[in-house]
């Protein structure tokens, strides 16, 4: 039943305002991320729409066919120019934003109205691919409130409800939904992996190490408890600050992203000392082509090859769990590399990282040897106010400069990227290595478990032919515990930056720190219990509540039962309210009738209160007085509108306890 919306918009211009508000709320987090022209386009079209609230649709110039096609071409072209593709996360979101505001322009029917709202919901959803913090959750709740209030306002056809009542209704709906949301969240069977291949830029969701490094790519992994691989050592397990599990090596950066070089080169030249460590790796499926090995691998498994930067790669992706034996030298020197490679290890993106490059060059001038520059950088990280945190502030335009000079909060990828840029600026060839650091010994099985949360990135710098490629872990300069004792100890530490104004007052400082720690603890819970609630955690939760080895069938059974229960409780609550007597006088009079009826005097459908009272009094002379006064008061409230009799009626009925005869 389509409702003629143009008429609705005429009678109720606020419907358009509400719709615009919801769309804006949903798009806002994206607008801060997308290229500026998209945000401008959105805002301009929105204002244009609001300044032309109602018109017959075919008189809109902009939404005429030609106009629409032109807009579509501009949009597609613009998005392609900005992203180089129309697929994937970022370009997809950009298109969605533009689509939402375009749809806002051509609302002609009820369906258009709803579709605009639905696009808004997709915008909310896609926001979670970028951020899943607690503030995001709060923001989303507010957005949802406005969404529901918009729908309620649209369906309030005579538009009588106040803004407050709409929001209250929306809030009530959300609150009532809460129990079911919890149950669904806890019991809905979690899949172990994606249903199909994710777009290339879907970093947010992948639960494994990628061969690209962007700000946030590793900190996201650190939420995951999933096992990356397990290692059985032939001898003793080496010290944990030696446990660098080498993965992809990254050379090139565009200012944001670091990518590897895939040249094959079987001749790795390496000086070694001492005996190698022998071990067996049981690698979980990664859907990637490289293997992990302790730095530095001395040999390679069959069917694999070395690259010139000592990655071990396979020809095909690792689709199922594999097991391979390795030998590694912990004491090694990677000597000699080609001129071209060293040249490549100095590449810097154009027009990026100006401040960092300047700093690097200054160090170059101040310091004597390359090693001095490296030490300068590590001291810089150690002595300035840098923080090691899982949830750094968003870096928008220049991840290195903003990190180094503004936010100073970062995870290992931030430190590594910034360090390499500084080194390259100082003329020292440097490259990034991604992999895992550490791992936890399982005392029961005497093996090492390396989880996704142990994902790490570090740097290698070329310190001349004498020393070759040397590993430098800038994260260790900021958070030595990260390497010494592992990620678990490193992270919960306070990362609170006390504002300057509060630093002089010890009490204020303490309170601020306390607040910060509390917030951090809450965030930690959120990360562990909400964001990190995956299949592993779910089965652990099910074990804890006594549902050992619950399979999908059991979960679906639980869910069905929960939904039915929810339905019954909700229905009971809602319908009980509707049965409640809205008329207090009638309520109490009915009670009186019920009590008399128990004595055998039932009211007839033909009887008014007075007739009933007269008949009752004839039967029960002992009650005549009470009956009379109750009836009088009831009549006074009901028919004479005397509200002050209501209290008396209530009191009398409460006292009215006729004995059966």
């Amino acid at each position: 039943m389509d409702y003629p919306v143009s008429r609705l918009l005429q009678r109720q211009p606020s419907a358009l305002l509400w719709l615009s508000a919801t769309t804006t709320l949903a798009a806002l987090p994206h607008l801060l991320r997308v290229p500026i022209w998209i945000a401008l386009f959105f805002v301009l079209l929105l204002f244009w729409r609001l300044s032309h609230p109602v018109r017959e649709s075919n008189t809109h110039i902009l939404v005429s066919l030609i106009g629409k096609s032109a807009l579509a071409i501009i949009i597609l072209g613009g998005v392609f120019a900005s992203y180089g593709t129309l697929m994937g996360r970022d370009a997809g979101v950009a298109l969605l934003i533009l689509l939402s505001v375009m749809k806002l322009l051509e609302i002609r029917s009820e369906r258009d109205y709803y579709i605009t709202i639905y696009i808004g919901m997709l915008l909310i959803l896609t926001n979670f691919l970028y951020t899943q913090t607690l503030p995001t959750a709060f923001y989303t709740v507010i957005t949802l409130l406005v969404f529901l209030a918009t729908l309620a306002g649209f369906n309030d056809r005579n538009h009588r409800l106040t803004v407050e009542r709409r929001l209250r209704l929306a809030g009530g709906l959300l609150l009532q939904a809460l129990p079911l949301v919890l149950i669904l969240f806890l019991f809905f069977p979690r899949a172990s992996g994606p249903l199909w291949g994710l777009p290339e830029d879907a970093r947010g969701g992948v639960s494994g190490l990628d061969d690209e490094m962007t700000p946030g790519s590793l900190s996201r992994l650190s939420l995951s408890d999933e096992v990356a691989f397990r290692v059985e050592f032939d001898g003793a397990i080496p010290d944990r600050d030696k446990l660098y599990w080498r993965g992809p090596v990254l050379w090139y950066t565009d200012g944001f992203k670091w990518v590897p070089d895939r040249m094959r080169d079987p001749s790795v030249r390496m000086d070694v000392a001492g005996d190698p460590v022998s071990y067996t790796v049981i690698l979980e499926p990664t859907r990637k082509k490289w293997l992990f090995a302790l730095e530095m691998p001395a040999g390679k498994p069959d069917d694999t090859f070395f690259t010139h930067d000592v990655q071990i790669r396979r020809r095909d992706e690792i689709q199922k769990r594999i097991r391979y034996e390795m030998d590694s030298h912990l004491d090694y020197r990677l000597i000699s590399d080609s001129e071209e490679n060293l040249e490549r290890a100095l590449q810097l993106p154009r027009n990026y990282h100006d401040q960092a490059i300047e700093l690097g060059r200054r160090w170059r001038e101040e310091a004597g040897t390359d090693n001095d520059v490296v030490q300068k950088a590590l001291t810089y990280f150690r002595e300035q106010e840098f923080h090691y945190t899982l949830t750094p502030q968003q870096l928008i335009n220049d991840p290195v400069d903003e990190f180094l000079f503004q936010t100073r909060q970062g995870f290992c990828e931030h430190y590594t990227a910034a360090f390499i840029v500084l080194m390259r600026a100082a003329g020292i060839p440097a490259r990034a290595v991604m992999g895992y650091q550490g791992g936890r010994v399982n005392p029961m099985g005497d093996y090492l478990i390396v989880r996704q949360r142990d994902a790490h990135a570090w740097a290698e710098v070329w310190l001349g032919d004498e020393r070759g490629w040397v590993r430098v872990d800038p994260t260790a300069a900021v958070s030595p515990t990260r390497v010494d004792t592992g990620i678990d100890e490193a992270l919960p530490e306070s990362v609170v930056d006390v504002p300057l104004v509060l630093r002089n007052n010890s009490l204020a400082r303490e309170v601020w720190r306390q607040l910060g720690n509390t917030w951090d603890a809450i965030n930690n819970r959120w990360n562990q219990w909400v964001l990190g609630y995956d299949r592993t955690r779910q089965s652990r939760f099910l074990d804890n509540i006594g549902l050992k080895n619950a399979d999908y069938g059991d979960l679906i059974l639980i869910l069905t039962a929960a939904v039915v229960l929810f339905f019954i409780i909700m229905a009971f609550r809602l319908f009980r309210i509707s049965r409640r007597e809205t008329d207090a006088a009638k309520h109490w009079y009915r009670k009186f009738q019920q009590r008399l009826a128990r004595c055998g005097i039932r009211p007839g459908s033909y009887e008014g209160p007075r007739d009933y009272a007269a008949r009752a009094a004839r039967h029960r002379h002992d009650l005549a007085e009470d009956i009379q006064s109750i009836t009088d008061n009831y009549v006074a409230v009901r028919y004479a509108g005397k509200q002050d009799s209501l209290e008396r009626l209530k009191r009398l009925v409460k006292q009215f306890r006729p004995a059966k005869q």
Partner: protein
Amino acid sequence: MTASFVLERYPGWGPATREGTAVRRRIYIFPTRQGLLFSFLLIVMLIGAINYSNSMAYLLVFTLASVFTAAMLYTFRNLRGLVIGIHPAQPVFAGREAVFPILIDNRDGDERISLDIHPYRNRKSRGRGHYMDIAAGELHRDSVNIPAPARGYVRPGRLRITSTWPLGLFRAWSYIDSDTAALVYPAPAGNPALPPFTEDASEYQSGSLSGTDDFSGYRQYRAGDSIRSIDWKVLAREQGVLIKRFSGSGMRRLILHWDQAPLTGDTERILSQLCLWLLEAEQAGYQYGLVIPGFELPVGHGEAHRHHCLKALATHGLSR
């Protein structure tokens, strides 16, 4: 609560609520087109959440799904417990619309928002675009117009009351049946010239013809007299309801006879012609009677008389 695809495809099959009883069990509910689209959207979003293993996406999908479920109950509640009374409509002429007063009793219920009540003929029946808000405890009055194409009786038939409040994702509806009917007079049509008068000087000389006739005195008002012949000035002086009488040639009586209608054979056209004459005669203030097969009414005048005659025309040849 019956939420059934079959009922949506073949609505009107489900049992209805009797007029005058509370709408309780016989409420049907099904997602609207927007609601179906919404559930499709939810599935897409859920697949996205699974694929990206995104916890907050899961939360969003579950929240929306729960709200969807709760909204269904809200929609259902918006109809539940109403008592709908359909009252007889005033007689109308064929071709017009009968207006059936509707009384919606919400004296036991909470506030209802944006209800639409409309006649239900088939699944293409649409709402009126006129929505009712009923306050808690209100006895709400409204009406439904039913076209009356032909003489006889018109019934409101099955009414449908619908609600999509609060989110428009579900539509709840209920059918109300009633036995109420409205009389439909034939549509007046034909030759407006009256047939010849029957001169008669009987005692029924109470016509009020034209102002040119001489005033001849008063008599007491009798039921059936035209209100136009009442002497209002006398009435205003509180001297009783008196009828002005005139002498002259005005004591004419008109017997409208079936056979006088020029179009023999076609019953409906004869009835329309007689109807037109009846109205003309009443308008002009004549005394008139009606003779049609199976029915005869002596001359008379006034609202009640007119209604009797028209009713005879309306029900001519009908079993009821």
